[in-house]
């Protein structure tokens, strides 16, 4: 995600710390069943995403679009098919109840916050720094870390190859047809050449890495030194601050029915 974001203070937080704390937030989100808390939290996270990541507005909207689609589909599915007793609307198999609707909205918010937290992490973390940090702070094995970095380097090349295959299919009039069979042959017409090229390339890179005397278990020095410092402490305080605001704020601002969205 390099190059699309201006640097903000979130970029300076140690990637490993950011990852662990974000995962912590994620897990604790699973225990929120109150709609108003969820609503407030979603708003706070949207604000963080919009102003904390340094992403330009155009790109932020571009990223946000599929998230919104997921939000809508989460709401709709639960609203239409969820259990409930106070029915608002009924048509055939669709029965929208008050309970299922609010549960749907809650789920939509949850999906949205899950996604946005991930997106904030990705937008403010450089992959190379992430893997260097994982090696240094969390003892992540270099064998895996460098394999990840090498693979990420290959993605643009694979994308170019994908475009070429698409053109080649166009030139050769390749049309796999519709339905299950068509899906299968279309998938393999793309996947087989892409995977074959990638496997060969990955294999060669691995051999080249070993030729450069890379051994998975050797002691090594690091070109990028990552450590834990004041920004990490600030990040922790920031998260605690958000928690406080949401907790207290939801007592005061109650826009939606204040109930547990789980089954009773």
């Amino acid at each position, binding site marked *: 995600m390099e190059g699309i974001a201006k640097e903000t203070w979130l970029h300076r937080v140690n990637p490993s710390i950011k990852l662990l704390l974000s995962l912590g937030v994620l897990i604790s989100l699973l225990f929120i069943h109150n709609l108003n808390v969820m609503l407030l939290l979603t708003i706070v996270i949207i604000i963080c995403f919009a102003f904390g990541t340094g992403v330009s507005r155009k790109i932020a909207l571009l990223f946000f679009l599929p998230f919104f689609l997921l939000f809508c589909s989460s709401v709709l599915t639960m609203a239409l098919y969820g259990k409930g007793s106070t029915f608002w609307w009924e048509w055939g198999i669709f029965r929208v109840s008050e309970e299922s609707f609010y549960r749907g909205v809650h789920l939509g918010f949850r999906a949205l916050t899950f996604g946005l937290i991930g997106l904030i992490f990705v937008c403010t973390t450089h992959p*190379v720094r992430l893997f260097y940090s994982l090696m240094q702070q969390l003892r992540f094995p270099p064998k895996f870390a460098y394999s990840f970095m*090498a693979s990420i380097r290959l993605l643009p090349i694979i994308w170019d190859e994908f475009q*070429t295959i698409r053109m080649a299919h166009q*030139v050769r009039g390749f049309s796999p047809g519709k339905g299950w069979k068509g899906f299968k042959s279309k998938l393999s017409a793309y996947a087989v050449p892409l995977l074959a090229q990638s496997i060969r390339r990955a294999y060669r*890179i691995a051999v080249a890495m070993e*030729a450069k*005397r890379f051994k998975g278990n050797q002691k090594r*020095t*690091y070109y990028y030194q990552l450590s834990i410092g004041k920004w990490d402490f600030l990040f922790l305080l920031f998260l605690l601050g958000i928690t406080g605001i949401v907790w207290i704020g939801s007592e005061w601002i109650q826009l939606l029915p204040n109930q547990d969205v789980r089954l009773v």
Partner: protein
Amino acid sequence: MCDHLTINKGYGVHKLRLKFPGDESLLFRDCHFQYEKGEKILFLGPSGCGKSTLLQVLAGLIPHAVDVPMKAEQVVVPESTAMVFQDPDSQFCMTHVDEEIAFVLENLQIPREEMPAQIKKFLSAVGLHLEDVQTSIHKLSGGMKQRLAIASAMALQPEVLFLDEPTALLDSEGTNQVWETIRQLPEDQTLLIVEHKIEQMLDVVDRIVLFRPDGTILADGKKEEVLANYQEQLREYGIWYPGIWEDRLIDCSEVPITNQADSPLLALRDFQVLHSGNVKLHVSHADLYKGEWIAVMGKNGAGKSTMLQGIRQLLKTKGTLLYQGSPIKRGDLQEIGFVFQNPELQFVASTVKDEVAYSVRQALKNPSEEEIDQVVRERLERFALWEHHHKHPYQLSVGQKRRLSVCATIHERHQILLLDEPTFGLDAQNTFSLLDWLEQFSQSGTTIVMVTHSEEIADHYADRVWWIEEGRLQKVSSNGVDGKELADGGNRERDVASSSKS
């Protein structure tokens, strides 16, 4: 075998046996090779004779990093080795220039404080003077990438430096850069090189080892002796030896200049090719006549492939593209063939035969199965591929794949054939056989537009050369005639490289 042949001095292998999994026969049977510190050796031989494999054994990569069944009575590998590989895009693991060298320094446990200075040192040793060492490797040209590969190899401070066809995928400028870099290395650096294109590098080596197709050693001795005594084999094994073009073209007649009085087959007027909304290529005025052979030349990334893709309407275009006098229609595109640079990406079938049958089915109207079989066989025989018809296209050799990609693309209805560097990375034999096929199509009236980096091909095969620079068609030169600058901002000081016919 006598005892004195075992390796008691220097490095090498004795009684090497090696075989690729699944292959019928051994690649090496009791192979012996020995060399000493300070030697500069070139391995020559036909494609597939096992020279690169032997190089990997000598460097200790087989069997440790590469799992190939092998055994030998004795293998002596230098304490420290380094290898530069063929493909510039599959030997780096990091995204930026400095990080790539740092990766090596990290492996050697060099303290972090010393790294920036060392990175600078190794980069300048190979002549890579970048403004910012944190440059994306993706943005470098092929020649620069290979020099970076040499820099990171030298960072290992190897006793022996192994080079496995380091220029096979480079144009002549990049090739020159690589050998110039090798010449700058310390005098006593031991070198073991596998190479096909030897015109520009013979001064680098003193000893040549020549392999037979079956992997046995035909000759091993001083450079001058081997070159003088085995001229016939060099030709037979597809090596790009000095003077090969003169040898090949002795019986080649002069290319007839096509009659340009006819109306053009294809006319480009203020033609623009777009890629994600931006104009990537602009052609203000160009014509293409029936039966012509056009070579499209220019630097990497200048827009040569983009132009071909634009003509075939694979990318969005603006401006005018007239085919036989009227704006090009969808139906016309069937008469324009396209051969991609990487053959594997254009294959759609899982056997060689089906690959050609697929195209034949589309070209003929309601063909019967016998008819298809017959046409497919004829074509495969013509391209010397029939004996491989049951194989998967990926299982062919590089040269065969390229032939198949042309064979499966071309059909009788094609008026124009667009080819994107069809001879890229091929040995001499495969290059000339492919050029000969194309010459036949050209003779029978097919118009050929071919991207190439080879000035020899442009000189000897093409009627005209289109020069692309920085996204513009800058100049069109006819062979034998001085290049005509185009009105829109061509660089007048540029010399006309293609006009001097040999």
